[in-house]
């Protein structure tokens, strides 16, 4: 597969963008995350009286300057109606990432070497719901010509490519809650293999809707016991956790071949050094009790990174605030063995909720920032863990730690697991 027997190329991160329940803008979100703030709040955009779960992580309204979302600042109003909210959020994060990277090539050759791989777990759920209502009421002929392109998952990548003229590989990942990590990892491999020099990669999700909430409630996956205390609802590893808190948002990274980035003097945040995947082959929504899928995914990622567990100082856990938190914990303990006591592992879902297909990308960015600033973001609400562990779960308060290598996990329905490893900029 490698041209002329060449070795895989090194891949670095040169741009990042986030739209999340803690707001817009990587630095703004990161500051709030480290300060222990929560982005979870009561749902007000639709009626929740029939829903057992009434809270979520929602991207706050505001202006770009204040870290809030005003779509008109990002997408012309006439185009907004041609895309579901997940695509809108993807564009917001992609624009920040691309501007941050400074990679805005005008020449055809550079544009052809730049691709996009932004995925989503669910895609245009609200768009599909609204269109279904129209058809069910006998008004199929009133369906917008933009219905299908608004709902399709790969249209996030499509819109970003059209905005910047990026004509390289145009691809999209759909692996439920593992989407974000798969997108970053697969995009890095495309660069390593020479299919592209630069990839705009990540995930986006906008399933905080009546249908989305009802669906996950039906699967008994969502937290319902903390409707009156939203900031306390997402509590990974806590004894009294009772389900995940739905979140929306997007995370996008600009990944770039190392020499390419060096040559143009780009700012380099970190290097993508490892990527691993596995399948559970077990159950549609639950992991096996022994966490062997998570274990194999992390082991594969470390192997491809060429590092041992002792060399990793921080893990950003999948940690959704469900019973599966302890399954992942067990897998990390087994893989790290005696090195577990030197490890920090936190779940940033405690602050922003579970962004489904965007989770892995946003959490990947948090892992990169943890390396940049040598600080582990906290796991909020962790007072009484369901069980003890030698691993430091960074309860409630961020910790300065000598982080040089970080691993981020994302696991999805269908038994799909992905882990990615970053190292400090070369």
């Amino acid at each position, binding site marked *: 597969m490698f041209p002329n027997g060449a070795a895989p190329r090194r891949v670095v991160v040169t741009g990042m963008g986030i739209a999340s329940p803690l707001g817009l803008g990587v630095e703004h979100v990161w500051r709030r995350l480290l300060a222990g703030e929560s982005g979870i709040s009561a749902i007000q955009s639709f009626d929740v009286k029939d829903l057992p779960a009434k809270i979520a992580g929602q991207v706050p309204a505001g202006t770009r300057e204040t870290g809030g979302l005003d779509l008109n600042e990002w997408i*012309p*109003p*006439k*185009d907004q109606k*041609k895309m579901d909210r997940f695509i809108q959020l993807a564009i917001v994060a992609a624009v920040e990432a691309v501007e941050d990277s400074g990679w805005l090539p005008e020449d055809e050759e550079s544009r052809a070497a730049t691709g996009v791989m932004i995925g989503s777990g669910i895609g245009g759920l609200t768009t599909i719901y609204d269109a279904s209502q129209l058809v069910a009421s006998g008004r199929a002929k*009133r369906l*917008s*010509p*933009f219905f299908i*392109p608004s709902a399709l998952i790969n249209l996030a990548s499509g819109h970003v490519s059209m905005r910047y003229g990026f004509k390289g590989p145009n691809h999209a990942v759909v692996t439920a809650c593992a989407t974000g990590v798969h997108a970053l990892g697969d995009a890095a491999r495309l660069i390593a293999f020479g299919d592209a020099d630069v990839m705009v990669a990540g995930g986006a999700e906008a399933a905080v809707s009546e249908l989305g909430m009802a669906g996950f409630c039906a699967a008994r996956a969502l937290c319902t016991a903390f409707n009156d205390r939203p900031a306390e609802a997402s509590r990974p590893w806590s004894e009294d956790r009772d389900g995940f808190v739905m979140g929306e948002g997007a995370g996008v990274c600009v990944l770039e071949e190392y020499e390419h980035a060096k040559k143009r003097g780009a700012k380099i945040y970190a290097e993508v050094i490892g990527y691993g995947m596995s399948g559970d082959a077990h159950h549609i929504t639950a992991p096996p009790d022994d966490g062997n899928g998570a274990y194999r995914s992390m082991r594969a990622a470390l192997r491809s990174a060429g590092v041992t567990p002792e060399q990793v100082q921080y893990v950003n856990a999948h940690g959704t605030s469900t019973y599966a938190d302890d399954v992942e914990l067990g897998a990390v303990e087994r893989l790290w063995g005696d090195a577990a006591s030197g490890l920090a592992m936190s779940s940033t879902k405690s602050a922003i909720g579970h962004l489904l297909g965007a989770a892995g990308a946003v959490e990947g960015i948090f892992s990169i920032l943890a390396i940049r600033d040598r600080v582990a973001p906290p796991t909020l609400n962790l007072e009484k863990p369901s069980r003890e562990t030698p691993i430091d779960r960074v309860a409630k308060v961020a910790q300065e730690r000598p982080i040089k290598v970080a691993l981020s996990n994302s696991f999805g329905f269908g038994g799909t697991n992905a882990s990615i490893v970053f190292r400090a900029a070369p």
Partner: protein
Amino acid sequence: MSETAEKVKKIVVEHLGVDEAKVTEDASFIDDLGADSLDTVELVMAFEEAFGVEIPDDAAEKITTVKDAIAYIESQKG
């Protein structure tokens, strides 16, 4: 300007996000106002909704300018 003409222009401005001054009667949706083929489909649907008329596909294909739209709608309203 007739009431129909005014309403048609307003719909065009809203749907295509263009400056009102550009929406002259001779303006072509695609050539002058930046619409693509899906935009024109949506525009025709908006006319149908707003005026309570049905515009069959073969008639819709011939509506390419603001003037065409006004003329067709007025003819239907009789």
